[in-house]
């Protein structure tokens, strides 16, 4: 059996596959955060005065706030003055086609397996590639424009559609919402903006790849998606980041607005650098994601596969304001080595006959700590509200942990709320059964884990589901000894 041990050692030593750094000239703001930096960011981006004011209000609010201490995660103090809050590739000019994109950047995307051109031609996916805070390539835009769909970087939206941005920014996640949301509101760099007009069904999956690259540059993405009456959109967010020794802070904000009869599907595959096997390095992923089902019969679905980051702190939530509106949350979170995740959702039922579904699958390996934290609130006017929650944890090895914190707050007696939870361990007998059929140990684990996550994967768009399964495999390499 000694060969097995060696194989496992070898696999365990496999370094983060996407850990490479692209050499691109950067325009970096001096380290530190004060009002001048906020003004600098705003002026670099040639923003209107109202937006600068909004940023400054957020900054002043942030100064008075305290970093949350309640999550079930541990990390050293973050030096907010040691971070540079703005970085943009120097060569920034309008690009007519993808061919004009910096070859270095193109090569990076290729290494990550994001064939922009292929996607453009074959898979019918519009890709808005965000590279270190500034968009470098946007495809399919004209095709979408024909339908009246706006899909662009946040900065462009500020320039070209200021009335829409002004109307919706901060309407779901106020600038005072929490410490990290306030920080993001003050210094957000760029992100994506989507607007789907009345009655339009977006014909393709909209996709964005985020990538953190500049050393010690926090990423403060901001995404805003608005679906007008009867509209539909499916949005994909996928992330990989290169290897770094320093902890990198990522505090994004995502806001979704669904009007009457509108549907928004938001899917994420997150694979940022989790740190090495000793727990050194890795991304701090402190994200605020929230959607509002504003109109009757509207629907928001969050699907996430979280395999990366040293620490994940995020609770994609739904405010179910419209009557008969629906909120869904499907999540797979993996923690291996020293990764920590405190993730879940909030379903806030305000309208009548509102329904929500929560399916959370936590996988812990190594010394990983995985926490599900979810809140279901039923307001006093939310008659006949329904919630179903299912939280399953899978443990691999005996040094990891799984924790579940479901909060319920019910103010209407007609509510029906169900909660199911389970914890299981990958059994030696399951692995042996696969092996006895000729399936290698690592493949067996991937298979068992994928089976465990099936209910979530089937919510993902096809190409994402395949990618998610691969990521899961990479994340759990060498986790069973």
């Amino acid at each position: 059996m000694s060969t097995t041990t060696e194989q496992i050692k070898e696999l365990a030593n496999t370094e983060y596959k996407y850990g490479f750094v692209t050499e691109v000239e950067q325009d970096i703001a001096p380290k530190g955060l004060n009002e001048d930096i906020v003004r600098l960011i705003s002026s670099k981006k040639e923003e209107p005065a109202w937006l600068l004011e909004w940023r400054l209000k957020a900054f002043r609010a942030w100064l008075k706030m305290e970093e949350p201490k309640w999550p079930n995660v541990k990390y050293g103090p973050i030096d907010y003055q040691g971070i540079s809050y703005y970085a943009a590739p120097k060569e920034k000019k309008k690009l007519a086609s993808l061919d004009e994109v910096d070859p270095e950047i193109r090569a990076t995307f290729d290494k990550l397996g994001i064939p922009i051109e292929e996607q453009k031609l074959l898979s019918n996916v519009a890709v808005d590639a965000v590279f270190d805070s500034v968009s470098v390539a946007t495809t399919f835009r004209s095709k979408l424009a024909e339908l009246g769909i706006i899909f662009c970087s946040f900065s462009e939206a500020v320039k070209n559609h200021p009335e829409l941005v002004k109307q919706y920014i901060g309407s779901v996640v106020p600038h005072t919402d929490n410490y990290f949301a306030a920080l993001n509101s003050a210094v957000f760099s760029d992100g994506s903006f989507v607007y789907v007009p009345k009655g339009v069904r977006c014909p393709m999956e909209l996709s964005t790849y985020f990538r953190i690259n500049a050393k010690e540059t926090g990423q403060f993405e901001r995404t805003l998606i608005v679906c007008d009456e009867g509209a539909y959109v499916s949005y994909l967010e996928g992330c990989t980041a290169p290897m770094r020794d320093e902890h990198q802070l990522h505090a994004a904000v995502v806001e979704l607005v669904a009007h009457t009869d509108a549907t928004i599907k938001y899917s994420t595959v997150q694979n940022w650098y989790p740190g090495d096997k000793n727990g050194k390095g890795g991304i701090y992923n402190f994200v605020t994601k929230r959607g509002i089902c504003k109109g009757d019969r509207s629907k928001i679905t969050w699907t996430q596969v979280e395999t990366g980051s040293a620490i994940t702190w995020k609770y994609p939530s739904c405010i179910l304001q419209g009557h008969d509106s629906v909120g869904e949350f499907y999540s797979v979170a993996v923690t291996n080595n020293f990764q920590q995740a405190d993730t879940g959702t909030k379903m806030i039922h305000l309208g009548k006959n509102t329904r929500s579904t929560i399916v959370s699958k936590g996988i812990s390996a190594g010394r990983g700590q995985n926490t599900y934290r979810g809140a279901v609130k039923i307001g006093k006017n939310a008659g006949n509200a329904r919630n179903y929650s299912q939280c399953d944890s899978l443990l691999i090895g005996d040094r990891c942990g799984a924790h579940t914190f479901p909060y319920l707050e019910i103010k209407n007696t007609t509510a029906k709320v169900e909660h199911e939870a389970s914890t299981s361990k990958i059994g030696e007998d399951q692995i042996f059964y696969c092996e006895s059929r000729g399936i290698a140990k690592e493949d067996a684990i991937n298979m068992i884990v994928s089976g465990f996550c099936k209910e979530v994967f089937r919510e993902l768009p096809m190409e994402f589901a395949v990618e998610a399964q691969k990521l899961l495999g990479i994340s759990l390499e060498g986790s069973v000894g």
Partner: protein
Amino acid sequence: MLEVRNLKVRVDDKEILRGVDLVVKAGEVHAMMGPNGSGKSTLARALAGHPGYEVTDGTAIYQGHDLLDMDPDERAREGVFMAFQYPVEIPGVNNAYFLKAALNARRKHQGLDELDAMDFMKVVKEKLKVLHIDDSMLQRSVNEGFSGGEKKRNEIFHMAVLEPTLAVLDETDSGLDIDALRVVADGVNAMRSPERSFVVVTHYQRLLNYIVPDYVHVLSDGRIVRSGGRELALELEEKGYGWVEPAAAGARK
């Protein structure tokens, strides 16, 4: 095909097999019988490479290779198959998908092309027909929610698809009614060939009415105490295991 010499196996610090010798030639069917706790299943699991079964002494040569030096998945790819006494459930993993991965792992090892979904389904449908197994078994999760009989039939189905060179059946008959028993036996009989060998572990003679063995061995207290032709099974049925046990029990002291 298989040559086992002086095999000693320990489970949880307890010696279960205390020196087993067994020679199986190509095309032969060997029945391994014995009372509860005699080590029948331990022998099957040790041959398959179960990590909980520690080989402390002896050798097992399979087709010229040192079987004991191979990991369980390598053994399987080399053509060793074990039908489990208690098949394991793998929730969420589609039975067809699972089998395709297994078959392709074996084919790759044999230097054959991996089958795509279409070709795989062709192979599988044929086997299902021969075994009189319902198609629906393909789309269910591996053994999840299967009845005892379905689980055993699924094992035989796996065996039929993987076409092993050496098949070890670990009490496949236990808990089966007569109809299910027949399905299992027919499956095995359909696969008998001059190149393929079987080791059939069973507590009861009953299965051997359907799968007629070339040799019968009786295990007692971790050793083979009797070997013979199929008439030995009938004799056992008549006289009970008590007939072979006292000698072995005496030898232990």
